């Protein structure tokens, strides 16, 4: 085989392989990067991290919403399903709970429109896991890793008393291991 033909074949193969790896790998790498950054900032797996009003230089998430008083959890369901529960904040301009798969696809979105009551109970599980307690909704992840985001929009960032009250409200939502059905 001629050297030029070898070069052309190597070029085409490497171009296609690199492109495919970046294309299909980048979403999970982006999730892993954000989780890694969150863990470095003191976060942990499977526990809620209650945010503060966003400020410049405090987030690695591009195009983040500065009006969100957010709550986040980095999920690893390999140890079993989880339950997010508690009293939903009532003073947000908008509230929603969303769960994202490792590849960033949205698995579940439930807002205060779909969950109008004060009490909240949402299961986080994989397809092969079952939860043995009543919940309002279930986020079924295609793999154990994922991310939970709870968005509470502030009506204003400049009213310190309002923001402090909202910060107390978002802490009324907690997370714990779910009761699972006996095998």
């Amino acid at each position: 085989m001629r050297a030029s033909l070898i070069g052309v074949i190597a070029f085409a193969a490497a171009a296609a392989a690199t492109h495919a790896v970046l294309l299909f790998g980048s979403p999970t790498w982006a999730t892993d990067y954000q989780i890694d950054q969150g863990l470095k900032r003191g976060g942990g797996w499977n526990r809620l991290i209650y945010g503060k009003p966003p400020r410049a230089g405090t987030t690695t998430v591009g195009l983040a919403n500065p009006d969100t008083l957010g709550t986040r959890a980095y999920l690893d369901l390999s140890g079993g399903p989880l339950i997010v529960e508690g009293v939903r904040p009532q003073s947000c301009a908008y509230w929603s709970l969303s769960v994202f798969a490792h590849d960033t696809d949205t698995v579940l979105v439930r807002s205060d429109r779909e969950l109008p009551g004060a009490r909240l109970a949402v299961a986080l599980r994989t397809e092969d896991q079952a939860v043995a307690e009543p919940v309002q909704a279930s986020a079924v992840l295609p793999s154990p890793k994922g991310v939970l985001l709870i968005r509470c929009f502030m009506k204003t960032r400049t009213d310190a008393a309002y923001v402090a009250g909202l910060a107390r409200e978002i802490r009324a939502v907690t997370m714990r291991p779910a009761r699972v059905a006996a095998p």
Partner: protein
Amino acid sequence: MSRRAKILAGVAGALAGAAAGAGAFWALTGPFTNPDQRVGAWTTNGAVGQELQGPYSRARVALYGIWGLPPTETLYFVATKDAAGAVLDRRCVYAVEGGALPTRWWGVTLYRDGFYIANPADRYSWTMTDTRIGPDGRWTLTLAPSGEGQNRLTFGPQDGRFQLLLRLYQPNPGVAEHRETVPVPTVRKVAC
């Protein structure tokens, strides 16, 4: 043809191919990629956050706006240029003029290179709950090099790629399917 020449050709081809593959990836997912729809000075991508989105859209969202919500919940409109098509310039003053939007909640945020712009007031956005809106429902935000005040956002002293992001949370029924009907604000250069 020597064996060494063939190996060199293979290695050179592979290296060039890897660079070309990465370049093509950047070209097809990077910040200058054409979005799927233009509305006035704004662009919007209707496939954010969905399982059905294609791999390019998924990669683009993951890299530049991870954990965006699907259009049934949120519509995102981005403007990097003014109404005349000129790139937003930190040395200029702009008026962002809008009115009622068909949604439960809206907000407009100014970013530099995708991140908040530091300023003494920690003011990065204005929303429907804190923007001063006229009795006729119209509102105007001012983008300026510096300064503080109601309805004002600042570019700051650093160069970069400036983006305005308009978020519509829980758009009215039918709006997500017809994003071209959203009365997006105009971005007008006032002075430079």
